[in-house]
């Protein structure tokens, strides 16, 4: 799959983490942070500033959006939920494919050198 035209900038690691977290469904900011921490086994811990700056950048690029429906139900009123946009989903898929290629090639070479 090709990335959407003109909007392709390489994703920073934090951005990739946030997108992956949101690929599983809508989340609010702190839930994203927790999921990222859980998946990386506590290796990646996003501080509040880094987390929300990343969210802001992804919002600017149109890769995620606020999901208005989830606001202020059981949670705190100020918590906002975020979701992938179509563009974000496509970009993530392209990025994952690219990473998959990298992983495959790297694995082949590593196995080859071992043999």
């Amino acid at each position, binding site marked *: 799959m090709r990335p959407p035209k003109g909007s392709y900038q390489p994703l920073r690691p934090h951005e990739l983490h946030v997108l992956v977290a949101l690929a599983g469904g809508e989340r609010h900011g*702190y839930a994203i942070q927790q999921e990222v921490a859980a998946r990386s086994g506590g290796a990646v811990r996003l*501080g*509040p*500033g880094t987390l929300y700056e990343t969210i*802001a950048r992804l919002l600017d690029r149109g890769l995620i959006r606020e999901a208005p429906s989830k606001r202020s139900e059981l949670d705190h009123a100020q918590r*906002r939920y975020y979701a992938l946009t179509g563009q974000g989903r496509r970009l993530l898929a392209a990025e994952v494919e690219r990473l998959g290629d990298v992983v495959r090639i790297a694995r082949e070479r590593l196995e080859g050198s071992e043999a």
Partner: protein
Amino acid sequence: MTDGPRPSRGESLYGLLLLLYPPRFRRRFGEEMLEAYREERARGRKRFYAAMARDLAVSVPLSWARILRRRRHEEEHRIKAVAVDKDLSYALRALRSHRSFSLAIVATLALGIGAVTSVYSILHTVLLKPLPYASPDRLVRLWDRHETVPYFSVSTGNFVAWRGEARLFEELGAYREDGFNLLVEGEPLRVPGSRVSANLLRVLAVTAARGRGFLDEEERPGAERVVLLTHGLWSSALGGDPEALGRKLVVSGEPHTIVGVLPKAFTFPQQPDVELLVPFALDASSPDRNAHFLRVLGRLRPGVPVEEARAELVTIAERLAQDFPESNAGWTVAMLPLHQAMVEDVRGGIRVLSVAVVLVLLIAGANVSNLALSRAASRSRELALRSALGASRSRLVGQLVLEHVVLALLGGLGGLALAWGAIAAGPSILPESLPRQAEISLDLNLFLFGFLLSALTGVAVSLWPALVGSKSSLVRPMKGSSGGGRLRAALVSVEVGLAVMLLVTAGLLLRTLGAMSRVELGFDPSSVLTMKMTPVEATYPEPSDRIRLYRETLARLEELPGVRFVASVHRLPLDGGNSSFPAFVEGRPAPAESRFPAFNYRAVGGDYFDAMGMTLVSGRSFDDAEMWESGGVVVVNEAMSASLWPEGGALGSRIGQSPRGPWLEVAGIVGNARESSLDEEPQAAMYIPYSVAPVPSMVLVARTAYDPLELVGPVRAAFAAHHPGQPVAQFDTLRDHVERALGPPRFHAFLLSVFAALALALAAVGIHGVISHSVRQRRREIGIRIALGARAGDVLAMVWSRGMAPVAAGVVLGLSAAVALSRTIESFLFGVDRLDPVSFVGFPLVLIAVAAAANFFPARAAAAIDPVETLRSE
């Protein structure tokens, strides 16, 4: 627990540190960040404060960088979007602040475009649009032709022969105009109609919308009587009743079966008012070869050229001339495409109008360019300043173009409104003789053309000044140079020249109109009521019945109060036609070429000469017995007397229609009257008593002591009382009747005068604009002259004469062009030389006077310049 309403010290500190972030970011995420801080803190993360410090150090600069980048982005977008919007509002502001300039341009364009669009709508409909029949290019009109009369109605004998023998025609049909008396629910009704050959609708390729057309056998004498109605008559007289088909309608006193209704869009060729068709009775076995009264239309077979078809008919005519020398010697055939035949008479007039309207458009164009040039020059400082302040050239050019396009579109809109109004007013302005008037409308193509024209004008007009204006450096305008001054003077010359051409032409046509309306008519059209009465055939079948009816009617009308004289005549003067027959003098050998020329005649009843106000020169009029019973006498006019009896002695001589008599004695001689047309010398004519020529229909004429139209009511009442069922129609005054004959020259003169007045006004605006501009440009020079001792009078004279120079050049140019133009309009002139001094000197003098005035005001302003003030301000 740190969780609680009171924030911890660390939390308060974090809250303060949030101020490091950009405000927009803080407002949006601040609360959530504090929340995240509290959660992390609650989980008792290791090295919590170090992690928070690292997070701050990384994210604050990133956040600022992002916000700033974004702000720059938005700014660029906003500027682009705002620029067009700004230019438009700037353009509107600039136009509002130069209101008189804007108004002048919009008005100039509106007048130019309006005049062109309306005149070309007329031209397009009348001259170019195909006739509203299928394959109209195959329709032709045919005439009998004699060397003395190039286009003459066709005799029944010739029509029957052509129709029977010609192979290159699909159909040949004939008709003659007629009026019919209808009886609808007991009410008499007079309806214009036509008697047609059964195949006429096939010639036009028209089929009935309801019912059927005529069958071929229905034109034979003695056939069942049938009638076709137009959609209009069917709706108005029968209420559009679908059951009307097959019913009887009383036409001319005889019941006729309604066999069909014509399509709504149908108009009868050449006579759009026809509402009813009846087949004429044609005795094909022994047709009349002497009476010429049919109008013949043909439809050519596909692909047959007009010339070939004409040649075929000429061959037939040659054979007819051999077979029937008595009636057909010297006769051949004339043929024209039907469309050409219809517009032939008006083609020239429309062409003159087209030329005039193009001249108006050229003047308008010159004027707009002139105004735009002047204004660009006076704005060059503003443009130079804005250019120095960094406005790009493309931006300035774009803005000027935008300004002028706005003006042009406004002008175009105004022009279309004017055109629409002019076309709506058309019926009251256009002369009745103009064919196809009902079809005239503002068509969409011309509408778009007008709009496009105005937009293009806007772009074209703005380009020159835009380039001059935006190229200007700061230096040139500050020096006060007047670029384009010579060009503007040339434009003034052109404008003046064109205006002179229009003025001279308008002058010639106005003088023609004047000469025509002052023409000695030979009769007095004031205070005369005219009305048409055609005796109903069924009630008054015999000539003697008609004679009795007219005699009684005239006697009754004479008794009405206020009536001075009443009479009847079979055709009024100036009704566009003539009736004639040959005349032989008793006791003289018949002239060799006996049939033509014939002499005009009028069958009259009552006190015709008194009612018409004609003068009896010698002898006497008819007495009552001669008029209605015995006949035997005739009155001739002076022209006829001079033609047949150049030595005198007309009175008492006897003339007849054939060399064998019967004879009519010349009882009196009357003065000549213009009966055929206003612009022809009166022709020889004779007046014969109705008892001698009891034609089927006459016009009643009543000279009254007061407003003739007040007589209409009493006349109707008298008819209702004494002759119920006998219609009387077409009430008119003789004055209006004569006025209608003046229609075409009046129309030409009216439009040319409007155009000339327009041209004059536009030229005045142009001259004034150029001179006042040049005075503004030369304030400094004039100030210095005054400072050096020039007197106000000298300055005024200098500025004024400099302004008049291009006017003088334009007048000379215009007069020479007008001399050439006058040759092409010579055929429209009457009673005025084509180099008429009044038109060639007087009318241009009006323009010179206007130009002198337009020049005077700026010149006076120049003379009033205060040198100290001017030099100080520089």
